[in-house]
C-alpha cells in the first residue's frame, strides 16, 4: 500500500493533465451543489419571512370583518355593510372562552396635514387592546389609553412612514397635525414593522382612539359600528374553537335565522400563514430535491468520465501494475481522482452557491438566508456522490490484467 500523499499527488497530476475535462466534469457537481444551496437558502428565507409576518401581525389572530352588502344581486365585498359593533366585540370577550383579547377597529383614508406637508393614509380608530394584539410597539411617546377613549381626545400615534413624510427629521411628539381638517396632537410614534408578506407598508398608518374616530372624525351613519374586530385566541389550538364560538355568538346577536347567511366574515390569518409556511416548506423541499437530482447527474458525469479515463489509461495501469502497484493501489488512485473531482466541485459549488444566494437576495425582493446545514449537507453529498460513482470505475481499473493492459494500444 502506498502512502496517501503520493496517491494524492498522482491523482492530482492526472486531473491536471486533462484540465478541461476535469473542469467540465466538476461543473456538474458545482451546479448541483450551488443549486441545492441557493434553493434551500431561498426556502429558508421564505420560511423566515413568514415567521416574521406572523410575528409582526400578531399570533393566534382572527379577523372578524363586517359582512358584504348585496344590492340588486351585486355583492360588494366584506366590510361594505357595517354589521359589527363595539358591543359585539365586548360580547365576544365576555362569552367566548377561547378569546383572549379583542380589538375593534374603524378605519378610513384621510388626508393628513402638518405645516406645508400633507400625506394621505388609512387612519385607524382603535382601543388600547389593538397594539398588543397586532404587535405594535411604541418607539417614543405613549400609546392610546383608556382615558383617551373615555374622553374622545384628539390624539394620534403615527407610523414611521407617516412621520417621515410629514415631519422629515423633526420630532413629531406634541406637534399638532390635521386629520381631515381636525387638529390632533401627536402623542407617540410606532416602532417600524416594515413590509408585510404581501408587500404592504405596515408603517403607513395612524392610530387614534376609536371613540374619537366614530364620534368626531368619520361622521358615520351607524354610530358604534366598527370595520373589523381583531381577535386574539388563547393559543394556536383554540383558534378553531374561537372561530366557532364567535360565529355562534354573532349569529345570535345579529338575529340570523337558520336559513340566513352570515353577515360577517372571520379570517384566520395565523392559519393562513401557517399554511403558507407549510407550502413554502414543501416548495423548498421540492426545489432542493430537483437540485439534488442535478447533483446526482453530476455524479453520473464523474462516473462516465472516470470510465473513459480508465479505458484511456489502460496502458498506464498496466505499467503501474508491472512495476509493483497492487490492485488496491490502482483502485485507491482512481477513487481518489473521482473524489477530488467531486470535492473540488463541492468546494467551488459552495462558494458559487453562497455568492448566488447573495445575488438572488440582492437583486430580487426574496429573502435569502444562508445557513450552515444546506452547505454541509450538499458538500457532504458531493463527497458521497464521488465515492459512489467513482467506485465502479476504480474497481474496474483494479481488475485489469497487467499483461493485457500492457499490450493495450
Amino acid at each position: 500500500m502506498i502512502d496517501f500523499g503520493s496517491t494524492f499527488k498522482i491523482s492530482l497530476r492526472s486531473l491536471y493533465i486533462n484540465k478541461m475535462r476535469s473542469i467540465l466534469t466538476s461543473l456538474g457537481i458545482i451546479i448541483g451543489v450551488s443549486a441545492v444551496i441557493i434553493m434551500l437558502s431561498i426556502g429558508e428565507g421564505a420560511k423566515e419571512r413568514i415567521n416574521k409576518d406572523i410575528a409582526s401581525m400578531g399570533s393566534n389572530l382572527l379577523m372578524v370583518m363586517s359582512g358584504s352588502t348585496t344590492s340588486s344581486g351585486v355583492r360588494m365585498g366584506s366590510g361594505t355593510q357595517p354589521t359589527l359593533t363595539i358591543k359585539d366585540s365586548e360580547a365576544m370577550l365576555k362569552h367566548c372562552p377561547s378569546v383572549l383579547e379583542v380589538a375593534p377597529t374603524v378605519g378610513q383614508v384621510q388626508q393628513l396635514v402638518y405645516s406645508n406637508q400633507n400625506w394621505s393614509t388609512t387612519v385607524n380608530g382603535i382601543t388600547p387592546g389593538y397594539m398588543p394584539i397586532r404587535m405594535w410597539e411604541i418607539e417614543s411617546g405613549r400609546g392610546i389609553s383608556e382615558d383617551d377613549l373615555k374622553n374622545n381626545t384628539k390624539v394620534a400615534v403615527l407610523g414611521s412612514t407617516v412621520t417621515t413624510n410629514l415631519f422629515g427629521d423633526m420630532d413629531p411628539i406634541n406637534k399638532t397635525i390635521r386629520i381631515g381638517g381636525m387638529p390632533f396632537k401627536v402623542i407617540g410614534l410606532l416602532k417600524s414593522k416594515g413590509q408585510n408578506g404581501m408587500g404592504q407598508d405596515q408603517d403607513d398608518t395612524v392610530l387614534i382612539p376609536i371613540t374619537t374616530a366614530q364620534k368626531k372624525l368619520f361622521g358615520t351613519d351607524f354610530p358604534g359600528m366598527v370595520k373589523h374586530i381583531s381577535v386574539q385566541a388563547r393559543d394556536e389550538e383554540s383558534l378553531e374553537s374561537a372561530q366557532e364560538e364567535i360565529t355562534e355568538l354573532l349569529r345570535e346577536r345579529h338575529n340570523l335565522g337558520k336559513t340566513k347567511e352570515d353577515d360577517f366574515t372571520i379570517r384566520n390569518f395565523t392559519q393562513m400563514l401557517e399554511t403558507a409556511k407549510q407550502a413554502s416548506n414543501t416548495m423548498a423541499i421540492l426545489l432542493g430535491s430537483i437540485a439534488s437530482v442535478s447533483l446526482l447527474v453530476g455524479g453520473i458525469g464523474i462516473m462516465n468520465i472516470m470510465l473513459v479515463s480508465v479505458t484511456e489509461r489502460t496502458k498506464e495501469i498496466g505499467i503501474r501494475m508491472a512495476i509493483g502497484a497492487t490492485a488496491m493501489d490502482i483502485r485507491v488512485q482512481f477513487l481518489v481522482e473521482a473524489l477530488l473531482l467531486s470535492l473540488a466541485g463541492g468546494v467551488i459549488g459552495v462558494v458559487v452557491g453562497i455568492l448566488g444566494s447573495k445575488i438572488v437576495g440582492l437583486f430580487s425582493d426574496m429573502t435569502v438566508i444562508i445557513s450552515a446545514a444546506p452547505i454541509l449537507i450538499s458538500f457532504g453529498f458531493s463527497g458521497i456522490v464521488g465515492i459512489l460513482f467513482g467506485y465502479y470505475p476504480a474497481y474496474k481499473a483494479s481488475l485489469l490484467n497487467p499483461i493485457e493492459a500492457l499490450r493495450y494500444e
Partner: protein
Amino acid sequence: MSLIEIKNLIKTYPTGDTSFNALDNVSLSVEEGEFVAIMGASGSGKSTCMNILGCLDKPTSGTYFLDGIDVSKMSMDELSAIRNLKLGFVFQGFNLISRTSAIENVEMPMIYKGVPPEERIKRAKAALKIVGLEKRETHMPNQMSGGQQQRVAIARAIVNDAPIILADEPTGNLDTKTSIEVMEFFVKLNAVAGKTIILVTHEPDIAEYCKRIVRFKDGKIISDELNAVQKGLDSLDKVNSEGIL
C-alpha cells in the same frame, strides 16, 4: 539454489474445445549475474515464459522459485510486491507513462515500494545520471528520442535495486545505432553492476551481446547454450587462469 529456477512449467490456454500448451514442460535455471537471451519465433512460447518469469502471469502447473521463494502459488497482490522488489522491466515500446516527466517515471517503482519522497527524488536523479539523462529530468516522453526513452525505462528498472532485469525486445523499436548503445548499456549493467539480465529478442545480432542463449520452439526449449563469443571468452579465461599466456 539458483536465482531463478523453473521446473516442469506448463501454461495452458483454452482455445475453444481443445487447449493449447503455450509452455510445455519447461525447466530452466538462471544463476545470479547471468545475461540470458531468449530467442524464438513468435508463438514459440518465449513471451509466455517471460510473463511468468516477470510474475505478471501464473503457470498452469510447475514451480517457479525466484531468489529461493516459491512464487508460482502467490496471489496477484503478492506478485506485485515481488515485481516491485526483485524485477525491473524494460519493454519494446518503452512503456513510460505519457505526459509524465522522466524523473517522475523513474520515481514510480519507489512510490509503490513506499520510499519517502525526498529519498525517491535523490535516487531517481542518481538513476537518470547512470543512464546519462541527468539533463532531461523534466522532459516528457514525447520530447525524447526512442533511445532516450528506453534509457529512462532502464533507469526505472534499476532504481529499486532489483537484482533481475527482464527486457522484452528492448531494441525492437530502435534503429541500429541506438540499439547498439542500449545493448552496450545492458552489458555494462551486467558486468559492472552484476545485474542478472534476461532478454527476449528475435534478432541474432542482439542475442550476440548475451552470454547465454535459450531457444524456444512450440513451447519447449530446443537449445540452451553459451554464446559462441562467450564460449571463446570463457576458454580464454580458462587459458588465462592456467597461466599459459
